[in-house]
């Protein structure tokens, strides 16, 4: 071996790309599919929970009341 060019040639051979095992590809596809389904499932479940949870209703009611109060105060000042 005499120089960088030789080392580069050896590196090309020593660090050749490696094919992944076939079972890795199928396992990954299954994991990704499950992740995708769970993401959609979580989102839908969250939306349903948000509509049903009484705590969230209370927050919405408080927010509406605060908004209405501000509106009324604004109108009074305007008068």
């Amino acid at each position, binding site marked *: 071996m005499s120089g960088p060019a030789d080392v580069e040639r050896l590196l090309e051979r020593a*660090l050749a*790309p490696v094919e992944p095992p076939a079972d890795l590809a199928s396992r*990954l596809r299954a994991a990704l599919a499950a992740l995708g389904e769970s993401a959609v499932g979580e989102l839908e479940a969250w939306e349903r929970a948000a509509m049903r949870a009484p705590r969230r209703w209370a927050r919405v009611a408080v927010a509406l009341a605060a908004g209405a109060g501000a509106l009324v105060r604004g109108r009074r000042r305007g008068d």
Partner: protein
Amino acid sequence: MEDRGLAKAELDERFSALYRAHLRDVYSYAHYRVGHHQDAEDLTEQTFLQAYRHFERALAQADGRPLRPWLIRIAHNLAANHYRDRSRRPAAALDDETPAAAAHDVEALVSGREELALVLDGVMGLPDDRREALIMRFALGMDNREIARALGRSEGATKVLIHRAIRQLEGVVARDGGGSA
């Protein structure tokens, strides 16, 4: 709801294309990075799962540029965390199924096996950043720009890094090979 569903379907399709295009790249990187078959599989799997979670944002930020450096950067960070947690470095000797075995003829294997083992040992003994850069260049065929993005460096700094890595490896091989390699 329908728009979100369509968008998700399109995202999934694009991610699937990314996965098909770069599974071998990520696995090759992981293989040389961790030096162990099972750990390489785990690292590849974790890389794609994490990539999937952040894919939409990555697409927006990439602005049309290739996503391979982003994928490799995820693998790089995961590998770094793995070694930080376990206080260990990649094994110097890779698994028996060396990459050379898959790609070269018998004569080359017999005559070049020692040389290749010497070079691989030399790569594994390099400082982390130099080793990573060589893996990206030679195992994945990444150019300086891609490697720079994956390592979070400038192209100029990356070029210097690779040059120094090769020079260092040259010295290691000359020393350990007794000049015969």
